[in-house]
């Protein structure tokens, strides 16, 4: 990860906590510099490029972005139609083949219950991508709305919402998961998604708050206000487009960590529950066999690692593109 340049204290204050949020403070504070008419380059037609077209211009030439986007595209296709490359049934297991190695048609071998590791690994992409995408959408939506309101209206709103944010920040993720999810009996992905949203929104909320605070001091916002624009119009037309970039960046990086979190919770037995197919469940089930049959552990672990890596690298690439200070 490239060095972060120094930036103004406003941004530093907005970003407490993990390194991930610190990175964001940088891009958040710089967003306004890239706003329309900013010092960005010009397009082929000589028209000034917007932040977004500029970023897209960069991304298209970034091999890291292309590689991770390709992996993610592949994963999304698998999530929608896993049977494209794995026509088998992930729930059909033949115990007599338990822990067998690879053979024709079953390249990854079998797990401790005699299920085909290849089929389960491919089908596991669906839950991981579903949880990752849904949790990220939920977190981004909830976090940016609450953070945006706190940043825009300030004072009482800000004080209350910030304290609530602090409270949720203070909940340890794994402990919270073990306590809250252990009472859930549903075997769908939604309790896990809900839990991640519940604990994940404060991060986005802080970023959004900082971005909104920065954006609302801009001349064009003051101008819009002076012309009598309503709060909702200012928020949606002028502030949101200029504050959304840092949210997108954090959310993309967080998506990878949410997938890892789902696997962690499932590994501990409180996330997804069978008959759901999840890499976390498979890793958990295969871990006692690591000495006898490492293949059952390595394939789902590898898939998980690659997926998380792809989303984090994508997030990095997006941040680089949206953050001119790094150039």
């Amino acid at each position, binding site marked *: 990860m490239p060095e972060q340049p120094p930036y103004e204290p406003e941004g530093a204050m907005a970003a407490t906590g993990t390194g991930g949020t610190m990175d964001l403070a940088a891009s958040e504070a710089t967003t306004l510099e890239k706003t329309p008419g900013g010092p960005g380059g010009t397009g082929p037609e000589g028209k000034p490029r917007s932040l977004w077209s500029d970023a897209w211009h960069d991304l298209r030439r970034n091999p890291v972005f292309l590689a991770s986007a390709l992996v993610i595209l592949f994963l999304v296709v698998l999530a929608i139609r896993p049977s494209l490359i794995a026509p088998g049934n992930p729930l059909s297991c033949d115990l007599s083949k*338990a822990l067998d190695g690879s053979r024709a048609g079953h390249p990854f071998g079998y797990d*401790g219950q005699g299920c085909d590791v290849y089929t389960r690994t491919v089908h596991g992409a669906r839950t991981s991508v579903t949880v990752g995408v849904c949790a990220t959408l939920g977190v981004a939506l909830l976090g940016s709305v609450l953070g945006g309101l706190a940043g825009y209206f300030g004072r009482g709103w800000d004080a209350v919402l910030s304290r609530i944010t602090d409270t949720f920040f203070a909940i340890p993720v794994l402990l919270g998961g073990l306590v809250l999810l252990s009472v859930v009996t549903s075997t769908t992905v939604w309790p896990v998604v809900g839990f991640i949203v519940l604990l994940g929104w404060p991060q986005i909320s802080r970023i959004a708050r900082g971005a909104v605070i920065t954006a609302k001091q801009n001349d064009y916002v003051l101008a819009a206000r002076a012309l009598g624009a309503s709060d909702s119009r200012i928020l949606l037309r002028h502030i949101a487009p200029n504050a959304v970039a840092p949210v997108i960046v954090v959310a993309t990086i967080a998506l990878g960590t949410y997938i890892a979190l789902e696997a962690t919770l499932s590994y501990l037995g409180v996330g997804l*529950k069978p008959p759901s197919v999840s890499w976390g469940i498979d890793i958990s089930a295969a871990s006692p066999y690591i000495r006898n049959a490492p293949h059952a552990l390595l394939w789902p672990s590898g898939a998980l690692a690659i997926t998380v890596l792809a989303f984090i690298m994508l997030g990095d690439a997006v941040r680089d593109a949206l953050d001119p200070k790094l150039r």
Partner: protein
Amino acid sequence: MRGARPVRWAAGAAAVVLAAAACGGGGGTTPGVFSASWGDPQNPLEPANTNEVQGGKVLDMIFRGLKRYNPRTAAPENMLAERIDTSDARNFTITVKDGRRFSNGEPVTARSFVDAWNYGASLKNNQKNAYFFGYIEGYDKVHPETGTQSADTLSGLRVTGPRTFTVRLNQKFSTFPDTLGYVAFSPLPRAFFDHHEDWLRKPVGNGPYRIVSYTRGFKMALRRWGGYQGPDKARNKGVDLQVYTDSNTAYTDLLAGNLDLVDDVPATQLKFARKDLDGRYINTPAGIIQTLAFPFYDRSWNSPRMRKVRTGLSMAIDRDLITRTIFRRTRTPASDWTSPVLGAAGGFQAGLCAAACVHDPRRAKQLVREGGGLPGGQVRITYNADTGSHKQWVDAVCNSINNALGDDTACVGNPVGTFADFRNQLGRHSMPGPFRAGWQMDYPLIQNFLQPLYYSGGSSNDGQWSNKDFDRLVDQANAESDRAKAVRLFQRAEGVVRDHMAAIPLWYQNGSAGYSHRLSHVALTPFSVPVYDEIKVG
């Protein structure tokens, strides 16, 4: 033994720290002393309050009762009893051997037994094994089902001399003497009553070992008691019982040379255990059967048609394949509701279950359909997940059922985080479907495999199955003074269990153990407990 199995395997995720502490303990470096895997007992080590295996292991080292079950055959043999006489299967005269002492010097007398049994039965002492004294006359006064007790001592117990006492039962129970090897019937020294707190801190018994120190969550040190008079003196200088909360950790420690004896080799390691341990691995039949029990308090499982569904589920399970692949033959497919350890003369009937316990997916599907299908379209098998091997076999049983019924979600496992919570849910009668039911015998009698589990209101009848014919046959069997006739009556009662498929027999369990180069003469009893006193070090 109620709930014995799971505690034995109990391994909480949170207790990794404790396991780490145990790892730090290292192997027995004292000459002649060896280390063995263990778990903290659930309760203080009062004999009548210990009904799980870990506490039972220690009590078996520091106590000797009137009878002892032969470590090889489980046959009840006189230990402290010189003789036990009866003429009517209801009044017993017991003579205690002369010259035996507790390790604090007190002599073992008839009173040591009578006081201990009165203590164990008394309601106010709230002992888990109190029901073992339920056959003795006056139990209903000392331990009424509701209200307060109207007597403190059992009227059926009378000390008649320094070494003799009489027992009067409230009904005929011909095999009563054979139950006296159970730990709840151990004698207790006066120190137990006079200095109870001190005794609890460092229990004093009359067995071949004495407790030197105990740190909860870490280890208990036991050393040979030089003054022990019995025939089974310890052949080593002592045992350090190291606390492990995960059998995988204990096994790894054994391989690493930090531990000398592991008495529960986890199923996931079985495939390579023989190779890992190079012959230092034993696998012995034990008086343990695993079954799937049903919530008969739930109407949807209790209707007459459900018998077909239960039988169908039983036939859907490929016991042979599961015991072969998951358990590496440390389990044997069950074909009755007792255990081969009893022997044919003791009531074991191989093949009693017949076709209903043989894998036949086609017939299974047909029976489930004829019985009206699965209640709610799905069975959820509840088990406690904190232990090493239950998840593996429940998943395998479910896959077996799913394959037979041709439905990927016909059966799912329903893990409960901890064994304690599992027991609580059983007690609340809130099982959503079949549940894991393991039974380890308390004493080697067919009665012990049937009455506590299937008798109306039985102490471990968690599914509340109730059948008049079964109850009547058990009553008759208990009243029968001829042992062979009693066994036959119990077998007829077991036939009722079979006809109604009150529980699905899964497999008979073996005990398995691995040990280090330092040890020899390692064996497991039919209760799957190591015979500590026979082990030689070096």
